[in-house]
């Protein structure tokens, strides 16, 4: 297998991805189908799905994915690749992802800078939740190599998301931003900037989210997420995607557009999902911000 110095240009389709979208949950499919081509969803430019929920789909789901893929640009935001996992990369699953991306002409595939599996009694085993990788130098190279392997296998660039977390590893030798930047640079992959996660982690670990935002490699940003969360305590946010987006996160998104220019931006809402017309308020708000900054030269232009 070729693992070194292979570069992958962004798929042509990624350039076509723009505007606002939302993460498609099962309960939103019927309302979306009913609202198709109506003004209600005029600002929905794309939809995001988790490949883990649609790979090997049969029955009603198989019909739904075909309907969606014919009508919307789709992005995939993976949950189970476990880029930082201590068990071997699941290459069988990676091939399934590859077929799925190609079959449904998925324009962008992103994954988390985290892991979700371990070796349980010596066997690779999924935890089915996102866990924080300790920020060490060894981990930078380990994860970056796995990202390269994924890009080589998929024959496309992928984007990596900065992930929310709750517990710092005492063995970490660098901060989150340093780790993120080192992985992106070492793997030469794109950045999926999660604005909400910057804010969540800034509260959970007491750092300045604006400094973090200014510190990411703007030229690698291809995609962004915003979401709501649950505030458990003054210094603890649980990233539930169960609430409306808070004003601080809106402000960070605006600042990101100012700094780096406009990029396709997705609203995540995973539980406590409001009716589609209510959900559209936040989608429309993204679209308003995007229009506002579309024609303005970014402060930290990378060109």
């Amino acid at each position, binding site marked *: 297998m070729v693992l070194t110095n292979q570069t992958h240009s962004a798929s042509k389709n990624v350039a076509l991805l723009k505007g606002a979208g939302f993460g498609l949950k099962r309960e939103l499919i019927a309302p979306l189908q009913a609202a198709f081509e109506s003004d209600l969803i005029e600002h929905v430019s794309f939809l995001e799905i988790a490949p*883990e*929920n649609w*790979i*090997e*789909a*049969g*029955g*009603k*789901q*198989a*019909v739904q994915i075909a309907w969606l893929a014919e009508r919307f640009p789709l992005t995939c935001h993976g*949950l*189970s*690749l*476990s880029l*930082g*996992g*201590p068990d071997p990369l*699941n290459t069988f*699953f990676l091939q399934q992802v590859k077929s799925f991306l190609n079959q449904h002409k998925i324009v962008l595939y992103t994954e988390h800078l985290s*892991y979700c*599996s*371990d*070796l*349980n*009694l010596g*066997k*690779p*085993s*999924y*935890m*089915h*939740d996102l*866990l924080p*990788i*300790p920020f*060490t130098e*060894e*981990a930078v190279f*380990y994860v970056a190599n796995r990202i390269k392997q994924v890009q080589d296998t998929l024959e496309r660039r992928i984007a990596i998301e900065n992930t929310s977390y*709750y*517990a*710092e*590893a*005492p*063995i970490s030798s660098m901060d989150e931003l340093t780790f993120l930047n080192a992985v992106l640079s070492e793997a030469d992959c794109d950045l999926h900037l999660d604005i909400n996660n910057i804010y969540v982690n800034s509260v959970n670990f007491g750092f300045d989210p604006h400094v973090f935002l200014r510190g990411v490699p703007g030229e690698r940003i291809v995609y962004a997420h915003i979401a709501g969360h649950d505030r458990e305590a003054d210094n*603890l946010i*649980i990233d539930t995607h169960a609430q409306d987006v808070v004003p601080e996160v809106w402000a960070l998104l605006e600042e990101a557009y100012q700094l780096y220019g406009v990029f396709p931006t997705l609203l995540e809402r995973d539980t406590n999902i409001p009716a589609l017309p209510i959900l559209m308020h936040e989608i429309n708000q993204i679209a308003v911000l995007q229009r506002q900054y579309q024609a303005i030269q970014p402060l930290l232009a990378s060109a």
Partner: protein
Amino acid sequence: MALEHPSFQAYQQAFCAHIRDPKHHKAPAKVDKKRMAVYTEIVFNNIFSSVSACYPVLQLVLGKRAWRKLVRDFFAHYPSQSPLFRDIPKTFFNYLTTQPNLPVYLTSLAHYEWLELAVSSMQTAPFGGENSPKNHDLMTQKIVVNPSIALVKYHFAVHQISAKNKPTAPLSQPIFLVVYRNAAFKVQFVELNELTAQLLHILKDKPHTGVEALTQLSVNLATTANKQDPASQAVMESQADTQALITFGEGILRQLQEQEIIA
């Protein structure tokens, strides 16, 4: 050795081991206890709700405490090797089959509950509605079987088990069920008599016309009867039986067609 097991991976293993089984595996040294507890709670709750959603009756029969304990043991000790969330309930079922102390009827019940999910998400060719032949003569033309069907046999009345109705012994005769998706993607459960179950097995095996399938069924019955009682007149009477079975079977096939089990 450092290269084979970098220290960050040893940390990850300890972190995960604690999440899986906090009582028996200490958290990694110096990790904030409260924050560690966030993980032990949310990761298990996620698994717990994924499993629970598939087994509503099983958890009622077991009771809250025993159910939670069982799912905890599954999460702590059974490797979950599929990255797909849909597969968590199936992995849990596989785990149940490795539990020697679980009453057999509970494994049957779990299989029955899992089957609904399995059939609803089964990847199959389209069937029903516009995809099925119209004005089809079931007796003389090849019958198409709904590709989503699962034909199952249980030694307990799994569809009647509840917290107040726990079987104490297996049934004297097993029950036969066909589970399938209709054209509207709803999962249906239909109880069959043994003869109809056998007929469906024949149809499912390879394409038959109604007459062919019922003739085959008649041959199978005669063979079975012969084996059980070689002195019987089964073979000699079989021609007359076949005709009777074909006449009788036509009604059964019509009914299966109406139920969207065949077309």
